[in-house]
């Protein structure tokens, strides 16, 4: 019982973690992309349909990453090249993604999908309790942890990461130093999109291998909240993602065992939890101010 609960928590947390880590990189460069939900749902529909049509779940994953990045590129073109308002453009991306995914996915509704297999390391995965948990998860679970470690190393251990943080802190100085602000922001935004696409594919290939319209159900938004929760620090995103995974799975189990609370109330728990977490975090103004990338959401137009 406990093992299976922990397992499902990991599956609920992994897409949040992947999407939030991608958005964290974009926000560290100073770009607020509120289109995570849209890119994620596009990843979900792409992953589902491509794997179904090609017969390869991995091809679906790759396609979802590409589509997520392509959507992010669209966002980048508007906000970085045409300096449109980042908040409004992110909303547009979400609305567009929800619309297009519904259109593409209509013919796939109700079809059984592909499932990405689990990694099964013999012997080790048969260990009691921790066996399946540590050695028998799906490959994207391991990837999500690697991704977090990689992003943490990149941001704080490499010169390129330093440049990215510099761009997010003060684009005008970065430009004067000869750093290509717009170029770095494009790459960061596209990385965020690729991650959101991957997270979407996780939903439709691992979490619930089927296509349901609006199946992301606000997870893209929760990922955005997680970035704030983590105060833009990669390792803290893991804590946040597993906290939310726990809430999601906890309420599902409560529904299953028939707790005398209406299921709708339980289903709204993750959303309410998000609000509570945001309020708690925002009360500590010093923490938020110290860590928020100073240019977050502000457009930059270089002099030429």
């Amino acid at each position, binding site marked *: 019982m406990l093992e299976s609960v922990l397992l499902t928590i990991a599956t609920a947390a992994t897409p949040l973690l992947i999407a939030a880590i991608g958005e964290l990189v974009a926000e560290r460069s100073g770009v607020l992309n*509120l289109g995570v939900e*849209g890119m994620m749902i596009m990843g979900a529909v792409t992953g589902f349909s491509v794997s179904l049509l090609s017969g390869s779940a991995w091809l679906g994953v790759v396609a979802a990453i590409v589509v997520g990045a392509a959507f992010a590129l*669209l966002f980048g073109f*508007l906000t970085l*090249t*045409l*300096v*449109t*308002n980042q*908040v*409004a*453009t992110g*909303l*547009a*991306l979400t*609305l*567009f*993604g*929800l*619309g*297009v995914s*519904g*259109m593409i996915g*209509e013919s796939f509704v109700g079809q059984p999908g592909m499932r990405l297999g689990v990694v099964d390391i013999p012997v080790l995965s048969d260990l009691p309790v921790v066996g399946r948990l540590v050695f028998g998860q799906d490959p994207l679970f391991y990837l999500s942890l690697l991704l977090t470690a990689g992003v943490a190393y990149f941001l704080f251990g490499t010169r390129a990461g330093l440049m990215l943080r510099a761009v997010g802190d003060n684009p005008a100085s970065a430009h004067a130093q000869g750093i290509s602000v717009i170029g770095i922001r494009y790459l960061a935004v596209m990385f965020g999109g690729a991650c959101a696409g991957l997270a979407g594919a996780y939903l439709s290939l691992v979490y619930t291998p089927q296509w349901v*319209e609006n199946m992301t*159900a*606000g997870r893209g*938004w929760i990922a*955005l*909240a997680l970035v*704030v929760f983590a105060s833009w620090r990669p390792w803290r995103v893991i804590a946040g993602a597993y906290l939310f995974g726990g809430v999601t799975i906890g309420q599902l189990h409560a529904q299953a065992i028939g707790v005398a609370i*209406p299921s*709708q*109330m339980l*289903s*709204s728990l993750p*959303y*309410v939890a*998000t*609000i509570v977490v*945001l*309020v708690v975090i*925002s*009360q500590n*103004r010093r923490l*938020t101010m110290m860590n928020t990338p100073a240019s977050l959401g502000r457009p930059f*137009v270089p002099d*030429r």
Partner: protein
Amino acid sequence: MRIELVKRPQSSPLFSALSPFLALLLTLFAGAVMFLFLGKNPLEALYFFFIDPLLETWSLHELMVKAAPLILIGVGLSVCYLSNNWNIGAEGQFIVGAIAGSILPVMFPGFQTWIVLPLMLLMGVLGGAAYAAIPAFLKARFNTNEILVSLMLVYVAELFLDWLVRGPWRNPEGYNFPETRNFHDFAVLPEIWPDAGRAHWGIIFAIAAALVLWFVLSRTLKGIEVKVVGQSPRAGRFGGFSRARMVIFAFLVSGALAGLAGISEVSGAIGQLRPAISPGYGFTAIIVAFLGRLNPLGIIAAGFVLALSYLGGEAAQISIGVTDKTARAFQGMLLFFVLACDCLIHYRIRLTRTVAARSTEAPAGHA
């Protein structure tokens, strides 16, 4: 080649006026390309989408039915967005307004006099405003991100409505369908020309609200306050305007109007509560607000355009067999083009060749 923006010394009034039309044209063009890919005749598809619904009286009435909530919510959102408050939870405020407004006809069906309808509208307004007050209060008091809070509250409102109509408010004579009892006659928002079609008083509320807000925003000190606080918070504080009060004001106005839209929709167009009472009006109204350039008069026009896209989606599904989801894709695309075209208001766009060795060039060289 590379795109380069040159800041205009002053925003261009010409492009302020032109940009929504340019965006519409581009959307139509992109739509035609999309239909081509779907294997449809693009001209025929666009005809069914955007012209056909305008040809019959009943469907003009439907247009007004759909435009009413879009305009009501859109003008409220314009106050929010002008003051830099990102309320994206109007869908939730719409739902809560509808629920609050439905208390009387659902819980007290025996109470039937003329006062019921005004009370319902008032309660809808209060319900929407109260629900919008949550993100507003959290932003004003704790600086909590209003975008995420207002959006999370949409999901909460949807689930709450779902619980109500399947649980305590389910129609006792309704064969277990998830819906409330039908509103009695005193609880129904009347139609304007009952013989001609379904258009109800909601559209009149919408146009009245737009006119009032247009006056406030363009002619009064409050309008200046909204814009100053939105564009330049420090200048607003220097003027003695309170950011916190503005947060509350903007959210209450937009929440109230979304709530009014919600109860008008339920008592005018639907006649009962159901699990789904909105085809995403609260989100589409965001597009309406931007297409109308955050100007209430422009929003009236924009509301009709987006309402047409809903009708067009339905019409195209019946006549040429494309899914009505294309309407949502169209709407998202429209917002992209609107935002992109707004760029022309503040910048001139110039295409330049990529940088070559240039400091050795003559003064007349390229810039």
